[in-house]
């Protein structure tokens, strides 16, 4: 396990090959870095007042890493999450996602990047209440232009992976909070994205459901997924292999640890 997640940037050839082993035939085999942020800033303007939410953040996350970004509210972690999720663009600096510069893409191009490369898990679950679990899961595939039968198959497979094979026809309202978040995880998984971005995934859950969802995240990590978890909770962050702190729009620590040290 320790071989797969290397701690230092500029990792060895060996790590690349290991990635290839986990994503056979995937384009990820050639791309080692999933996230490369270089001196990214984000300034919000409200009338005459300009607020710098990010003041020069540089961060690299390799394929297969499980990284927690931790910071108190107002630290800029939401802004960072929006930029990492291609929901917003940086004011300056560059952001390469899986080798592709997305810093100044159009809204439509960003939508495609989000669809292909990123799976989101939100604090509020954000499931469509009017449709069943599997229809929620297939939603990103509709936007990817996948055919109907394949969509359903893949949605079913993803739901089975998160342990909800028996609840595919249930609507979100008929599921517990933990189950709803599992549906959301299945939806994030279904497109086989380069990055799974979880924004306070346990924030709305009781401790049992929370550890359940964190366990699921861990399983995904074991299976070789790249995960970025944004939280304010140090306990939740400790589940990740690497913890990055953010405060006042700057990286305060870059605490790289081997998984073994966390365990």
């Amino acid at each position, binding site marked *: 396990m320790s071989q797969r997640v290397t701690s230092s940037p500029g990792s060895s050839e060996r790590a690349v090959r290991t990635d290839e082993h986990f994503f056979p035939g995937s384009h990820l085999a050639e791309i080692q870095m999933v996230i490369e942020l270089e001196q990214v800033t984000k300034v919000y303007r409200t009338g005459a007042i300009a607020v710098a939410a990010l003041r020069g953040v540089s961060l690299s996350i390799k394929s297969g890493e499980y990284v927690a970004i931790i910071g108190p509210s107002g630290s800029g972690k939401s802004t960072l999450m*929006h930029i990492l*999720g291609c*929901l*917003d663009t940086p004011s300056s600096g560059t952001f390469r996602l899986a080798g592709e510069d997305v810093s100044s893409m159009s*809204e*439509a191009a960003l*939508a*495609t990047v*989000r*669809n*292909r490369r990123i799976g*989101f898990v*939100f604090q*509020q679950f*954000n499931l*469509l*209440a*009017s*449709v069943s679990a599997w229809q929620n899961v297939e*939603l*990103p595939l*509709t*936007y*990817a*232009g996948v055919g109907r039968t394949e969509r359903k198959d893949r949605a079913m497979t993803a739901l089975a992976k998160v342990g909800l094979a028996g609840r595919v026809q249930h609507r979100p309202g008929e599921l517990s909070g933990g189950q709803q978040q599992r549906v959301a995880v299945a*939806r994030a998984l279904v497109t086989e994205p380069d990055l799974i971005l979880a924004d306070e995934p346990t924030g709305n859950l009781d401790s049992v459901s929370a550890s359940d969802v964190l366990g699921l995240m861990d399983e995904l990590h074991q299976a070789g997924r790249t995960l970025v978890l944004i939280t304010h909770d140090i306990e939740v962050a400790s589940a990740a292999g690497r913890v990055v702190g953010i405060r006042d729009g700057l990286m305060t620590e870059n605490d790289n640890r081997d998984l073994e040290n966390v365990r």
Partner: protein
Amino acid sequence: MSWLETLRTGINGIRSHRLRSGLTVLGILIGIAAVILTVGLGEGAQAQVGSEITSLGTNLLTVSPGSSTSNSGIRGGFGTASTLTMADATDLSSKTVAPDIKAVAPTTSSSETLTAGSSNWSTTVVGSTTSWETVRGRTVTQGRFLDNQDITDHSAVVVLGSTTASELFSGSDPVGQTVDIAGVPMAVIGVLNTVGSSSTSSTASDPDDQAVVPITTAAERIFGGTSRNSVSSIVIQARSSSDLTAAYQEADHLLLNLHGITTASDADFSITSSASLLSTATSVDKTLTILLAGVAGISLLVGGIGVMNIMLVSVTERIREIGLRKALGATPGLIRRQFLVEASVLGLAGGACGALLGIIGALFLPGAVGDPITISPPATALAILVALAIGVVFGVYPASRAAHLAPIDALRSE
């Protein structure tokens, strides 16, 4: 994402807000049904008036004599003088002078009492020639019509309208029987076809209640009077409705010449056409239809604004859904398309339901109101298309608002 997928998503969106969607559809529905019914009502009235006027005879010109002036200087108005004669009618029927005139029927008429055995009946007695049958577009169902022999011989024969015949003979065959008209015994030689009473129209007398006799017989033996050669009107049939103007000019010119009149304003006769009557009557109905359709159109506009209103509410209410869809990879174009499709489906549903309601109304309302309603399929199809267009047009603004929401703002909203 294909159009079919978008449509499916749109219908899903509509179905998940049933009450709201239903109310929106209702707005369009009422507008479309109102348009269909009012236009149908107007068209029905037009058709009714048109057919009533056409039943009087097509391509017809009526020449009426000018005004007479009494000894005390009182002018009697058109038709009171006896300036038209049988000779005028004969000259008008000349094919060389008036090539566009197909048939000429000089007529005289008077209200007389008819007696057959013990029953009597007062009706209009018309004296005319053989052309009357062609000009009026009538046929006989029993016996025969007047022939040239009857005219030249001043025969004592009569052709009865179907109502007149049944009033006098109550079911028994009238042909061959005798009727006394103003004391003159006349032989019934035929019965006219029934054209149906246009009882609602007070402008024309009942075409099924009259008696037609040879004009010569009428002048000499029934009506009497001083000028036996004068006729009360001359009905002219043009070759076709497009020749009506030419026929009018020929008749006008000829009569002015015959009467030795040099300035047209001094004419001692007047010529009217059934077409001018028809166009006046239909133009009145047309104005009414436009007025009603305008009111219905405004209600349709209100329905469209309703669609826009609901779609704007829908965008605000579903702001999180829009944000989520954007996060999952929906481009602004796809979001716009989804909301446009939803608005169009609402419009189309309203249009289709409205058309259905309009057709049902057209089937049942005439029984209650007594006016005919004509539903024209192309107008109905057009109304449905208009409803669809309303959905699209009024959906554009809400859809582009949805498309331009920033995904983070949309996701953040509670």
